[in-house]
């Protein structure tokens, strides 16, 4: 590749000393990626930040002369009980479902370690179903009158998704169902990477299965657990479609999370400034989580 570039560069008008060319070449290789990043990531993000400081609504979108309002959109969003509720729900939803799916995923991974590969593929089938389908199926399964879940547990008139105390826990349950395969497969990969000899050695030293898990498996699996946890947190925190299709944030905002709130503000009410502020909050959280993840991966290497 490099030689190809240099031969083509030679007859060109641009003649650079060999030293400069050598320093320039890697940057030129990075240029397409850079353009891509700036055009598709940086530009919209900057635009969104700009929008969040202006009072952009349907009425002044055309003229483009939206007032600069400083932090007003953020102040308005933060003092709005709907935003506060959505933030609390987002945190509960993400932390709750990720914690549960890690524990369940770990249990399943340990259980299936002997027959790992065949069964993990089976679990991934659930993971591969489009979220639209999952959400619709769970709407039906969780119905208060005709739902399968109520029938299974012999319950009557428990309206999982239409009860303001149950909607969020029910959605966490659905999210766990969705996320467990990913957690299990990831943890399984981590488990199979632990050398057998360590277990054998600790067994010879007299460690029981509990002690082996506590002192061998967990410490060695720590990086995998962290990575799987952070990735799941990112997936869950930005999740929009599952909740939107299942409850649309209802009843009475009981399952409203930040992404559904941002969507409503921007696309249904055309409050672009306020919506951008909410979306930027999501962005900051995801960005911080990504930083933690990248640091974690580096440390692993």
């Amino acid at each position, binding site marked *: 590749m490099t030689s190809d570039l240099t031969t083509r560069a030679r007859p060109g008008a641009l003649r650079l000393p060999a030293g400069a060319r050598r320093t320039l070449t890697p940057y030129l290789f990075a240029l397409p990626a850079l353009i891509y990043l700036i055009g598709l990531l940086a530009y919209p*993000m900057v635009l969104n930040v700009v929008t969040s400081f202006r009072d952009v609504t349907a009425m002044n979108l*055309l003229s483009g002369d939206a007032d600069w309002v400083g932090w007003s959109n953020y102040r308005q969003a933060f003092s709005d009980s709907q935003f506060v509720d959505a933030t609390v729900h987002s945190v509960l939803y993400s932390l709750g479902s990720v914690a549960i799916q890690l524990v369940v995923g770990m249990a399943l991974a340990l259980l299936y370690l002997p027959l790992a590969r065949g069964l993990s593929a089976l679990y991934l089938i659930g993971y591969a179903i489009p979220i639209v389908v999952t959400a619709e199926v769970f709407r039906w399964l969780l119905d208060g009158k005709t739902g399968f879940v109520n029938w299974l547990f012999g319950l009557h008139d428990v309206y999982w998704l239409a009860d303001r105390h149950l909607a969020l826990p029910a959605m966490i349950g659905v999210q766990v169902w969705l996320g467990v395969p990913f957690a299990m497969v990831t943890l399984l990969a981590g488990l199979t990477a632990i050398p057998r000899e360590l277990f054998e050695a600790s067994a010879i030293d007299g460690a029981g299965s509990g002690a082996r898990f506590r002192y061998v498996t967990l410490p060695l699996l720590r990086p995998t657990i962290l990575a799987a946890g952070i990735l799941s947190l990112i997936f869950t925190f930005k999740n929009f479609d599952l909740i939107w299709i299942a409850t649309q944030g209802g009843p009475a905002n009981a399952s409203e999370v930040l992404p559904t709130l941002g969507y409503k503000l921007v696309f249904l009410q055309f409050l672009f400034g306020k919506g951008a502020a909410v979306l930027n909050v999501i962005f900051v959280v995801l960005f911080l989580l990504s930083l933690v993840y990248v640091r974690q991966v580096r440390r692993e290497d």
Partner: protein
Amino acid sequence: MSATHRPALLGAALSLAILATACGSSGGTTSSSSAPSGAAGDKVTITWWDYFGYSPQSDQAVNSLIQKYEQSHPNVDIQRTAIGFADFRTKLLQAAATGKFPDIAAVDNSDIPVFASQGALADLTSKMSAWPRKDDYLDFVVQSVQYDKKFYGVPFRSNTTALWYNKDLFKKAGIAGPPQTWQDLRTDAKALTSGKQSGFCFAAAPTEEGTFTFLPMIWQAGGDVPTIGDGASVKALQFVNDLVNVDKSAPKSVLQWGQSDVGDQFGSGLCAMMVNGPWVLGSVEKGKFAWDVAPWPAGDAGTASPLGGEAWAVGKNANVDAVWQLADWLADPANSRTEISEGLSSIPNRKDTLDDPAWVWHPMVKAFAQQMPSAHPRGVYGPKYAQISEAVWTMEQEVLSGAKDPQTAADDAKAKIQPLLGTS
């Protein structure tokens, strides 16, 4: 594993970025580069947007109208773009922001004020005032295309909601006919509820569909949106609360049901009555039972229903004369009756077509036509209707989910709604 998950991370950032682009498209210029009307060889090109591609039947109806018009007007070329319902408003808004609003678009009648206040629409006041056909339409249909005392649209097609009832279940319960009043509705719904079967179903999802279904009850009680917080609005909230939480004749699932969910429930025989529009006919006909439609049961102030359907909006940069000619042609029943009535499942919206047997494309149309004169437009609440609508559905949801009592929910909604009313 880290390498394989980098794309996922990128995807996370990307999807956010896409959301960001979609809402960051401000600063558009108002260049009149769109609609090269009247260009080469005096051929006029009209750009046309609608969301009627949702079924082959409706899609075909629109194409037929366009074809007929182009045949009788060989100098006109109509370029139709069918957009999905969910994206339609956003696409129109983006088009308006970049000065590329279509020449003619079929917009939901409640959206006329949003686009008019945005400055995206042509002022049709002089055309409309002199239009002989204007007075053929029911008054509120004409009202629905006005904003700030000016005309920004032309009436197109209308529909409304009414009470559908399962005649087989009524017979089994020994009920002679559809309920006439709220009290009848409560009594009948209770008698029709048993096991998995609910007496009455309605959409109360946290969306415009919830508001569209609840507003009629406020009007029936004698209230209105600007006076939410008064006794009538509280009475309407009390009424739905009685049905859902006291009698339990409507399932609590209504809190997550849109109109199509309600139609499916009724069609599968799980609901003995529902309020819905003619667009759920397909789901209902799947059920093998006898059914009929009747007007909404009357509250203290009689019956009332919401005005649904679309009006023609004309883009600011359009060739208004050419588009007006098209709108006028479309408004002539001789040209468009079959397409608009049966093709687009509409209910007559003119004084002279309400009782016209030619408009009864299905027996149920009679009941809807009977309901139609008591329909109310939503556009009268101004360009911030979308926010007002959220306050209304939130209020209903708070009551039905038990978060607030009717009076508190209505007071809280009033505080949200009052600053949103008006034309600016």
